[in-house]
């Protein structure tokens, strides 16, 4: 047997063995959590498992191997547990385990500061195992089981610090939304399986779904996967739950678990549903994506809690990913597979990119949290002085997420723009109007993202410290720093060598797109990215970086050599204003004020009020900002009120006498029997 084949048949059992190892570590952690070296052991083994999984998945994807399957006698007795490794699963395994490995590496240092390790250590490896199993599942039962396992283990991590009331509320909301999402997915799989109950993915793929049911499956999948990913208006739990967990878990939830949700959407809509995509599906997903992108970043701009800002910003990036997916659906519905390949590549590239920089930013926030104990930006500032390396890594992440060349975020947004620019060929009129509007929303969200991260980095790391905690910060430990710089380096690499990433994505794209993919990029001169030949639009991150470095360094060298290199320190000028107090600096709230006034007054009905005491009164003046969350107030609050009102209306049913209960039972029986009679 040749080595390659033996490896291929071996890789799936090995891939399945590692999540089992992670589960075993989770069980072991229950005992080990109290010991001082327990954290190191658990995170070390998790790191090892993730790296091996990453290597195996990378090998599968890059070697372009055929899908392998495996059935274990677990789960439903007549079904068994089916597992399958194909290009799509391999790509998402890479995303998940890259994030998992880096989070584990970070936690080797960060986990030492955990107050309640017994609430984190057992669930962290279990969470990783759950996400891996979702990707490998090949039947509906295994998929949903792993999905719920992932949800519940992450819920336990969200509740790690449950004494804080905000966290308990976040956990409750998360649980409700996770149950709702799984219910929607359960119904979707029920429709896909059909009356014969073919729950294996192979059977679902082979069967056909009528157009009406297919549309229903799409909507249910949007509800189920979309609520996990954070599509507006299902995002409400996300910005509460993600920040509540310890920072390395926040990185996993925001950077990685949302990608598992995207995987669920892609698997069901692009793979299991098969051919019959209708054009309005693409329109629906596209519109949702555009709204999600802009609303997500506007929400993020209004936050001054660093972790919550990042969590809201995840919502924006999910919107960008869904814009790409919606375009791909619209193209596929019109048999334009070459264009669909571009849109899919853009979406998948952004999946990878977002997992890199969002993990980086959450881990950086974790480092800040360890150093200062603060995540409120109004009490931070000036951290670039005590924490120069963390600041550098956070800066790279901020620039990457703001889609600045030559980093990676720009490449995926550029590809999405190119996909939008080839879409006037779409024949449907609604799409013709929708696509440029979504393009404008995407452009707006990209520009607002830059504003958001000038605020996030500038207020946290620059300026002068706004509290004693920020002034007394020290640089974080080496494990954490190495995790940060692994991610920062990957952000840069994916930005300057995008052609290689696009080639790596090609098997996934052709799997989802009826065999069509983008042409090979690795043999282009200077590794230039050329998505479509006859469009002639090209981008070369490597050369942009090279030119910028050359011109920047030449300028610095010449100026220092020929003109002057003298520098002197002095007090800040500030137009001659003696500005001794750090409270005079711009704050997060004041930085966002112009945006709040321009956009927030429409979206959030933002109102500002200054309360000046009358002359002679020595009380300080007060400034008040009121924001209203339109999604919560219009969508969720009425539902919550209705549930409360109904349950209080029926509350008296708890205090009846036994006679009344008996008559209620009798009445119910009569009604049911009558129903039976009338039904026949």
């Amino acid at each position: 047997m040749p080595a390659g084949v033996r490896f291929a048949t071996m890789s799936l059992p090995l891939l399945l063995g590692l999540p089992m190892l992670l589960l075993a570590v989770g069980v072991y952690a229950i005992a080990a959590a109290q010991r001082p070296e327990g954290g190191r052991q658990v995170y070390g083994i998790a790191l090892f498992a993730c790296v091996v999984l990453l290597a195996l998945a990378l090998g599968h994807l890059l070697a372009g191997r055929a899908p392998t399957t495996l059935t274990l006698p677990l789960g439903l007795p007549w079904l068994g547990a089916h597992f399958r490794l194909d290009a799509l699963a391999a790509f998402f395994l890479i995303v998940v385990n890259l994030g998992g490995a880096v989070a584990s590496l970070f936690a080797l240092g960060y986990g030492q500061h955990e107050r309640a390790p017994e609430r984190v250590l057992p669930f962290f490896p279990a969470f990783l195992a759950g996400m891996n199993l979702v990707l490998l599942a090949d039947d509906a039962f295994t998929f949903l089981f792993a999905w719920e396992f992932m949800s519940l283990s992450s819920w336990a991590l969200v509740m790690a610090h449950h004494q804080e009331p905000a966290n308990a509320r976040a956990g409750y909301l998360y649980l409700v939304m996770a149950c709702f999402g799984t219910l929607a997915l359960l119904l979707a799989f029920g429709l896909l399986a059909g009356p014969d109950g073919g729950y294996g993915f192979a059977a679902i793929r082979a069967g056909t779904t009528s157009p009406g049911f297919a549309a229903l499956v799409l909507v249910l999948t949007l509800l189920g996967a979309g609520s996990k990913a954070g599509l507006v208006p299902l995002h409400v739990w996300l910005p509460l739950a993600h920040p509540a967990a310890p920072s390395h878990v926040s990185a996993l939830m925001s950077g990685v678990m949302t990608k598992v949700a995207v995987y669920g959407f892609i698997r069901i809509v692009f793979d299991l549903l098969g051919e019959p995509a209708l054009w309005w599906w693409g329109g629906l997903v596209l519109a949702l994506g555009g709204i999600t992108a802009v609303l997500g970043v506007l929400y993020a701009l209004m936050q001054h809690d660093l972790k919550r800002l990042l969590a809201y910003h995840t919502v924006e990036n999910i919107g960008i990913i869904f814009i790409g997916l919606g375009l791909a659906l619209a193209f596929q519905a019109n048999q334009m597979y070459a264009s669909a390949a571009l849109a899919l590549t853009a979406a998948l590239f952004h999946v990878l990119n977002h997992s890199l920089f969002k993990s980086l930013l959450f881990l950086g926030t974790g480092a800040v949290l360890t150093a200062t104990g603060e995540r409120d930006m109004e009490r931070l500032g000036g951290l670039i002085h005590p924490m120069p390396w963390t600041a550098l890594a956070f800066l790279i992440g901020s620039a990457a997420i703001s889609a600045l060349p030559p980093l990676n975020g720009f490449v995926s947004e550029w590809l999405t723009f190119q996909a939008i620019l080839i879409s006037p060929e779409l024949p449907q009129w609604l799409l013709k109007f929708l696509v440029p509007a979504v393009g404008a929303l995407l452009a707006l969200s990209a520009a607002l993202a830059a504003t958001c991260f000038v605020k996030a980095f500038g207020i946290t790391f620059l300026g002068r410290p706004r509290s004693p905690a920020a002034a007394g910060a020290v640089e974080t430990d080496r494990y954490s720093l190495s995790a940060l710089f692994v991610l920062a380096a990957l952000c840069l690499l994916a930005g300057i060598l995008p052609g290689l990433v696009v080639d790596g994505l090609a098997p996934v794209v052709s799997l989802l797109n009826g065999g069509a993919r983008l042409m090979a990029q690795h043999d282009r001169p200077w590794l230039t990215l050329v998505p479509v030949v006859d469009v002639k639009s090209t981008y070369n991150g490597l050369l942009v970086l090279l030119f910028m470095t050359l011109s920047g360094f030449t300028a610095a060298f010449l100026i220092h050599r020929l003109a002057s290199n003298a520098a002197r320190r002095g007090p800040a000028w500030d137009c001659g204003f003696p500005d001794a107090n750090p409270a005079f600096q711009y704050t997060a709230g004041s930085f966002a004020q112009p945006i709040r006034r321009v956009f927030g007054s429409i979206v959030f009905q933002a109102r500002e009020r200054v309360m000046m005491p009358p002359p002679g009164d020595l009380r300080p003046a007060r400034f008040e900002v009121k924001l209203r969350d339109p999604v919560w107030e219009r969508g969720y609050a009425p539902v919550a009120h209705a549930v409360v009102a109904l349950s209080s209306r029926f509350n008296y049913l708890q205090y009846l006498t036994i006679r009344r209960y008996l008559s209620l039972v009798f009445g119910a029986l009569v009604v049911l029997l009558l129903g039976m009679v009338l039904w026949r």
Partner: protein
Amino acid sequence: MALIADYLVQGCQMLLILLLAPLLTGWVRAVKARLLRRRGPSVLQPYRDLSKLLRKEVVLADSASWLFRVAPYLIFAALWVAAALVPTFASGLLFSWTADLIAIVALLGTARFFLALAGLDVGTSFGGIGSSREMMIASLAEPAMLMMVFTLSLLAGTTELSSVARFMLTAEVGLRVSLALALLALVMVAIAENARIPVDNPATHLELTMVHEAMVLEYSGRHLALIELSASLKLLLYLSLLGCIFAPWGMATAGAGPVAYLGGAAIYVAKLALGGLLLALFETSIAKMRVFRVDQFLGAALMLGLLGALLLFVSRSL
């Protein structure tokens, strides 16, 4: 041999824009002074300012970090590369495919990102107000610019500038509503992005709009020189962009030979002079607006750009 010549021409373009940028700023200032019936400094004054600033020592605020010292070089590099990627005297140069118009817009974004961070670095209220407002203006100007790019790309079938310029010279372009809208949007964005009246005042930081000049208030010496040079480069970039897209006449093609290049350069300088003249005329004939009028101004630009793109999505002949 041909390759070396190509490298040389590309290098000439980079040097040309670097040398012309302060002259353009000086020219606009001189014309404005004449229009205000002042004598004004010579058009060469920006060069003198730059060389003086370059030789002075830098005074850094106590709270300034390494970012504050690196940012001027980064901003300069990003803007120089972006400006050098816009075709000036010739189209289709050696590295013209490195970045398309979307990437050039994003490079401007990179420069702006670091400039805004530098404004926040020292931790003064002036820097903060400048950064915050600059980002508010950019958050509307950048999408407006991208909508203009959409319009162009839908017509020309590409976002690469040399190909766009070549396409604009062909007969099939004609007069189009969408192009008029795109031109209007680009001019409005250019005014806002270059901190010009009526959005901002390049001559002072002591006004109620306080945007660009407030942001760079703490810079001195060689750092300030680089920031000023970058601002000049940005103005040059926008005028070259307007010239290359909406007035591509007289541009040499790649490999046309030195005579054609010289002719192209002469025409390019003439275009810049005309653009600077119009800018100065416009600036002297209009009053500055309140800072919270700027969003309406730029919102109009965004809507014009979107309208242009929408028209083309509906019909390629509009």
